[in-house]
């Protein structure tokens, strides 16, 4: 199983995690995810996730004009997004622990 299947369930969490530290624009988010090891994540998936999170009220969005370069559209977490990230991270960890113990028993 490649990571794309796994990724589909957790891309929301990954995107929220990238934005936890700082607001970022789309291209930077894509690059960060790729650089951190998720090489198969598609650009469209990232943007689709961003829009869905925004529409569900977990992200803010604004355009930052730039003097020397092109303007960029930034996304950031709002309070609801932070809550969602926190609860999602908890869910994730407990899930991982469950899977780890299952796999340990199976592959040991």
């Amino acid at each position, binding site marked *: 199983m490649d990571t794309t299947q796994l990724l589909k369930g957790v891309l929301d969490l990954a995107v929220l995690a990238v934005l936890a530290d700082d607001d970022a624009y789309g291209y930077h988010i894509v690059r960060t995810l790729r650089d951190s090891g998720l090489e198969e994540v598609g650009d*469209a998936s990232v943007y689709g996730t961003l829009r869905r999170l*925004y529409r569900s009220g977990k992200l803010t969005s604004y355009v930052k004009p730039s003097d020397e370069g092109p303007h960029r559209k930034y996304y950031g977490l709002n309070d609801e997004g932070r809550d969602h990230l926190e609860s999602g991270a908890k869910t994730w960890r407990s899930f991982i622990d469950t899977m780890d113990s299952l796999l340990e028993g199976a592959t040991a």
Partner: protein
Amino acid sequence: MTTHEPTTPDPTDDKPSNDSPAATLTADRSDTTDSAGEISDYVDRVRHHLSDIDGEELDDLIHDLELHLREVRAETDQPFTTVIGTPENYAAELRQTAGFGAGPPTTGYDPGRVARLEARVARFFQARLDSLESYTWGRAFVDFLPELRPGWWVARGYLLAVLIGWMTSPSPIGPLGIPSFGGSAVAGLITTPILIVLSVRWGRRRYRGFKKVAVLAAGVIAVLTGLALTGRISDNSNDAMYYEPVGEYWHEPEQDWTILPANIYAYLPDGTPLDEVMLFNEVGDPVDLPEVGFSERLGSTFEAPPVTIDGRGVPNLYPRKLSIPNLDPTSDLDEQPLTGDEPAAELVVPAPTVVPFPDKLDEPDRAETRPEPSTTTSTVENTR
């Protein structure tokens, strides 16, 4: 994961300052036109595959993509399809992760091509409009143009009705300027409003693809019909102006000059010539002879008729003067061409309503003493 409608706008949430996200994109001058065109092409195809998505959300999706492509192009020269996939695939993946359902089924032909062509044409004109809008009057004019569109829709329908009238009726335009249909002005009263309503419907709905081309073709045909129509109108008005001028009055030749004399000479019974008589017929109309200008029969040219002080020509003053003296052997005829010095004020023109005295003739004596026609012709001869 909970999903619900977004809350009231966050204070830090700023939409782009312009109405259209694309406007902010083109506002930056850092793009070369090539990459802007390349981005637009890709984006148009993606937009086409997402056409079922609501407009504002679609605009946001597309705006994100445009910015992304710009960053991509800044990083690499590879074609977009290589870097992020084909527009179709991108659109499908975007649709899925953004939470929209499956899109409309794709058809056999490439709709993107028409969309791309439309977009290219629109960008061309938009660039022209942008340069026009830099003048304040240009902006006012450009802002006003959309208000003319409904008028164009009505005109288009009417002109198409005129065209159908031309094709189906011998007299294409009926009363009140409404085109006929199939030879009937009444049928035209029904079909013309139908065509106008159809044209307004075409204008109000935004078609794409082949339907849009069909509507544009109808518009071109309507414009051509309008040009042909104005051509016909100017032709007809030229005809109306075609009269032969004689001096300063308009003369409409309608009598057969072969049976009417070229000139009339009047004499009193005792042979005294009457230099100037004014002749009227039984209803008070001036007797007017049709030959004007050069008279073939007489071999010389009529002078312009005298005019009254208010500029009216007097066509029924006889004998009509010829520019070359008449070579009549009856030398008691006094021919003097009128010169320009003749004061027009000496001429007394009776009112047209005056009934000539022959109708009121109540003196039998006078009637009896009227000269025989043969008598008068003996003293009057036309030059041959």
